[in-house]
């Protein structure tokens, strides 16, 4: 009954004309970010934070969340028409989507992606409503040791699931934690590692780092081969053929479940659910050999999983305060900028924000479906923009975004520096997501650990003697050590 009242409250907030407008603008901007190559959802959301400075917190969060899930829709368009994913989660869509476009069937590919995304997103939002409140109520029992252990699990999952080498991914996580050490000590308030530079007293800015690593870094990488070959195709027929609906509906159903449940695991990222949905579809198919040749279920399943994941991943963010991906970390940063802290207390203190946001996600999914089907042709036209205008334009917004948070040219410099680092890390294939998550979670982690040790008078076993904390730390250890164990087992097998 309590949940039902919250739902009503959420819809009353989300359906305010001004909030509907913010959701609509967010959907448009998000799709644009997803469409534009060289601008991923993390950097895109970060760039657009300044436009929310003067909005009330609910409106700002509704708009930024719409940008986030809108970008998931937009990424498909480039995958189908250019064979370049607009964002990483759309990589797998290239396989069949691009082949369909080459056969002159880009319309149905984009159409089924929009419909699948709508169904997946809507179901996941409904499940988010059901799951998040009990989870947040449970998390309210957590003390500092449990919070520390939970953050360790979140970072371990991001680390264990990214990149070619767990050791390299771990170093990237710790790099983020090292960056988080710069600035005021989160417990005592003493400045640390500031090199005597006043702008560093507030710490290494999260927004310039995200824009550098994901925005400038991506553009530098794109400059190596900036020309896109857009497939010229008529986009008149957007709906699949009648017999394709049957296979597509099964794929959409399976993609929805896979996306949502993987979204609940912090740190899994959007790529794994899409790949898994594709693999499952191939396994259950009567003609697996046709995957990769341009079949509708090869587009429907990953695209559905992608949006279902995007909405499902809001569960750990809202209920536990753990962002599962760099884009959600940016969203968490935006919450903090607007004076809100995602996590169990937000449900108690600002139910209007939480439930207003969740309700707006329903409406946003409807808006995206309405926007995307008729506007596919328009978005496709944007891909014909020349890179000599596109990339300077994106950089312009990066500069505004980096500067405006603290009105600091130092932050713009920081963005450029991290842009170069982002380019280098991409080239050597070291994952960037762990750094971002560690940077935002670092102060919380340090605070939780130090408070735990204060509680136990310096006895570290407090982390393993409390059951929830112990279980969480075991999960983290399993995630991090499993590649090493697998390697040792392989070696033993060979010997």
């Amino acid at each position: 009954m309590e949940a039902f009242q919250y739902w009503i409250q959420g819809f009353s907030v989300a359906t305010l004309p001004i909030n509907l407008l913010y959701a609509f603008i967010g959907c448009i901007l998000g799709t644009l970010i997803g469409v534009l190559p060289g601008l991923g959802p993390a950097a895109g959301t970060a760039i657009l934070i300044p436009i929310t400075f003067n909005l009330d917190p609910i409106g700002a969060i509704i708009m930024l969340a719409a940008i986030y899930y809108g970008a998931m829709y937009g990424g498909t368009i480039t995958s189908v028409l250019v064979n370049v994913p607009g964002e990483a989660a759309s990589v797998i869509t290239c396989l069949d989507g691009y082949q369909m476009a080459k056969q002159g069937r880009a319309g149905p590919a984009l159409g089924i992606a929009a419909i699948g995304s709508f169904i997946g997103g809507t179901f996941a939002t409904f499940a988010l409503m059901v799951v998040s409140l009990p989870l947040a109520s449970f998390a309210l029992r957590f003390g500092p040791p449990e919070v520390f252990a939970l953050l360790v699990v979140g970072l371990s999952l991001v680390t264990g699931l990214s990149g070619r080498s767990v050791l390299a991914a771990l170093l990237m996580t710790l790099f983020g934690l090292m960056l988080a050490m710069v600035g005021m000590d989160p417990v005592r308030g003493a400045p640390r590692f500031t090199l005597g530079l006043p702008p560093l007293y507030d710490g290494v800015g999260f927004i310039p780092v995200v824009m550098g690593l994901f925005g400038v870094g991506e553009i530098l990488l794109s400059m190596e081969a900036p020309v896109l070959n857009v497939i010229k195709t008529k986009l008149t027929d957007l709906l699949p053929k009648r017999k394709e609906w049957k296979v597509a509906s099964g794929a959409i159903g399976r993609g929805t479940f896979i996306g949502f449940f993987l979204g609940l695991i912090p740190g899994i990222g959007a790529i794994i659910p899409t790949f898994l949905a594709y693999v499952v579809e191939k396994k259950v198919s009567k003609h697996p050999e046709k995957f990769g040749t341009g079949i509708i279920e090869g587009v429907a399943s990953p695209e559905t999983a992608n949006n279902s994941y995007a909405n499902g991943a809001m569960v750990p963010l809202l209920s536990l305060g753990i962002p599962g991906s760099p884009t959600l970390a940016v969203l968490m940063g935006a919450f903090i900028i607007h004076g809100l802290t995602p996590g169990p207390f937000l449900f108690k203190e600002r139910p209007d924000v939480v439930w207003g946001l969740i309700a707006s996600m329903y409406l946003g999914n409807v808006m995206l479906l309405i926007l995307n089907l008729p506007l596919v042709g328009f978005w496709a036209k944007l891909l014909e923009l020349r890179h000599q205008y596109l990339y300077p334009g994106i950089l312009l917004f990066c500069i505004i975004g980096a500067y405006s948070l603290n009105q600091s040219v130092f932050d713009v410099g920081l963005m450029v520096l991290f842009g170069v680092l982002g380019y280098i890390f991409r080239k050597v294939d070291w994952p960037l997501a762990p750094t971002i998550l560690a940077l935002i979670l670092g102060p919380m982690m340090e605070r939780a650990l130090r408070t735990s040790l204060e509680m136990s008078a310096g006895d570290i076993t407090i982390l393993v003697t409390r059951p929830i904390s112990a279980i969480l730390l075991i999960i983290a250890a399993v995630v991090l050590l499993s590649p090493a164990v697998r390697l040792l087992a392989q070696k033993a097998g060979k010997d």
Partner: protein
Amino acid sequence: MKRTWQVACILFLAGAVVMLISSFEYPYKDRLGPGPGFFPFWLSLIVVGLSIALLFQITRGQKAPYGSESPYPNRQGAGRILIVLVALVGSLAMLDYLGFRISLLLFLLFLPIALGIRQWWVVSLFALAGSFGIFHVFYHWLKVPLPMGFFGL
């Protein structure tokens, strides 16, 4: 790629050693519990250990964790990257002195031309819209503070 990974490990190792030494400047413990030096000390110590472990794995290990592709861009790509970096650093240097509008006007004039566009009037329009136009939208409509420079522009 092997050399690049080794260099990255050494840089991480160096950074962690610097942080480890710097962490001694802050109290490890105070009367309430762990001090400001506690977390950085252990963190940098772990990074030192992991950097050495990865370096060892790359140098001695049988199975390479890196790909076979070259990490270096081709000549043209490197040229374009350099152009973007020059433009970014240039605008960064000018931003506080010339203000947003002039700095970004120059930035948006320079980049498309340096990247090969020769339609001067289109570039000029693009640069004007991107600098003065965007300034108007962000500064006046969205109330986002942007640098004005010495000339109030």
